[in-house]
């Protein structure tokens, strides 16, 4: 309304306020700005160098680099690479990456949302402080720790759960299993990844939930709501996009994880969407596996694979960032 008034009187043109910055400030601003642009610089360099190194492979393989699923280096009799028989196709590992990451998200998101709700609305003050510290600490754990723990401690239990799933839910195609190999399956890798992303999703959700406007919470309570009906009516609608954003962040982290997956997953180059079968892999773990004995041509292919992985995580993170940024300060 006040804006209508303002426009009605036709305000005078705004004076431009100019200051001549001092030399020291100019230098300061220049240094800080260029320092801040380092992230842009580094990210573009990553893209350029990986694209440069992987270019020849990407050119020969074309689109089939991400659609086909065979990764073979064939040498001719002289020990040189046979360009016609050598193929690089990332398809199987892309399937594996998505499979493991989705298992992780499906397991982690409900647990994280429940934890975030507990921390925000149920925990007594002293417990909340401890629990928040513990969950944040978990986010700081090195991934190799999760890998070894997953291999030695989680895997025996997880195999047992996998057998239960197969026994009771085996009629669902994804839980089917032909050779009964339960060890080192995408299911186990997904669980380890879930444990790794729970702290991330929890802390994003907790942050969003804690920004729920207090007046709406009070309005719900004043209408005789129980804590749970208040959460359903007020907190979850408000925090929904924040949860999705947090899940995307977790997805990005799960897709790029290397060492933990390499440790618990039986990295085999084949398309496998049977989550309980002990074979599979993701792009990152395949790079680590193949890197040791790769020749120059294969290293180029691995660089191209790294580029694809980089772009995938970039896209997922951008979506996450967009969703989280939009959820802040918005009504619904």
């Amino acid at each position, binding site marked *: 309304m006040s804006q209508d008034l303002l426009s009605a009187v036709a305000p005078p043109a705004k004076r431009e306020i100019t200051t001549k910055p001092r030399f020291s400030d100019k230098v300061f601003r220049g240094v800080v700005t260029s320092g801040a642009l380092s992230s842009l610089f580094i990210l573009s360099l990553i893209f350029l160098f990986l694209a440069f190194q992987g270019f020849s492979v990407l050119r020969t393989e074309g689109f089939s680099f991400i659609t086909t699923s065979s990764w073979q280096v064939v040498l001719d009799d002289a020990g040189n690479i046979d360009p016609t028989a050598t193929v690089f196709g990332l398809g199987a590992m892309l399937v594996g990456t998505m499979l493991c990451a989705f298992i992780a998200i499906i397991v982690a998101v409900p647990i994280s949302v429940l934890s975030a709700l507990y921390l925000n609305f149920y925990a007594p003050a002293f417990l909340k402080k401890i629990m928040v510290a513990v969950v944040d600490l978990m986010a700081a754990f090195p991934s190799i720790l999760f890998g070894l723990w997953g291999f030695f401690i989680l895997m025996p239990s997880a195999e047992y759960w996998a057998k239960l799933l197969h026994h009771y839910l085996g009629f669902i195609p994804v839980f089917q299993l032909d050779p009964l190999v339960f060890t080192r399956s995408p299911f186990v890798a997904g669980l380890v990844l879930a444990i790794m992303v729970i702290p991330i999703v929890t802390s994003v959700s907790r942050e969003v939930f804690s920004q729920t406007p207090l007046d709406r919470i009070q309005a*719900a*309570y004043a*209408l*005789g*709501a129980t804590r749970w009906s208040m959460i359903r009516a007020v907190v979850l609608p408000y925090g929904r996009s924040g949860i999705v954003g947090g899940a995307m962040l977790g997805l990005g982290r799960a897709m790029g994880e290397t060492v933990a997956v390499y440790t618990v997953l039986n990295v085999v180059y084949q398309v496998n969407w049977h989550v309980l079968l002990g074979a599979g892999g993701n792009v990152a773990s395949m790079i680590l596996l193949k890197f040791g004995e790769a020749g120059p041509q294969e290293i180029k292919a691995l660089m191209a694979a790294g580029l694809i992985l980089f772009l995938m995580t970039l896209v997922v993170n951008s979506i996450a960032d967009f969703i989280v940024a939009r959820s802040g300060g918005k009504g619904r």
Partner: protein
Amino acid sequence: MTTSENQKDPEKNMQTPSVVSSLGSVAKTQSAPKSPGSQALGVGLEARGVHAWFGDRLVLEDMSLDFWSGTVTALIGPSGCGKSTFIRTLNRMHEFIPGAAMAGSVLLNGQDVYAPGTDVTKIRLKIGMVFQKPNPFPSMTISENVLAGLKLAQIKVENKDDLLQECLERAGLWNEVKDRLGAYGGSLSGGQQQRLCIARSLAVRPEVLLMDEPCSALDPGSTLKIEETISHLSSTMTIIIVTHNMQQAARVSDYTAFFLSDGGPGKMVEVGPTGEIFSRPKDKRTENYVTGRFG
């Protein structure tokens, strides 16, 4: 008494004479208005020696006050004198603040709302509240907002449309929104949003309605509409309104209580029929305040 019974017959609960007679004596000696208005239906809500703390700080001291059914009681006083804290103790919203504590008792129809084992959600159903800032649920439409209380407290109602119309009519909003009940609550103006919040409170059929400075965020036109709504509602329920606006208190209320804090805890200085408080206050401090000499 369950809420559903309460729903069907609100008048029955308000006319509980036994409660009035048993507690009337206490009320009279302390703070009850001398001559309850003819329309009064009895003592609905009573505060007995209510104290309130935030952490170690006592913010409200020894508040005893009766609120008669069918009347509007205004609580006035300068900022920080404990008016809002007081009404938040009445429907147990006080306890959401960490470190909050209280003493004394609040009786609704003779029953202590702070008694052990009391279901706090049932208390808040019977004592509704309207807040300073209009706070409709933005993810719900207008009709969903009005019926939100039923959903939140899981109360079944047979004819939702009738209830919706009735509540919006009582809140004076029906004519303005009847054609766009599916619009989101946030699309209304501030004054309409506040009346929507009143309608939302009415839908669960409260016996008491607490209003915490309901007009302070609104323009004069919307304020007038809300005041009309208050006088319409006052014949059927107990209304307690906190206000900074003394003209508003004079316009809408039957009784007025003046609160004051001398830097320490807030206390009640004086209570009486609104006319007397504004024309012949007994206490010098009340007189200074209502004549605008301070505060």
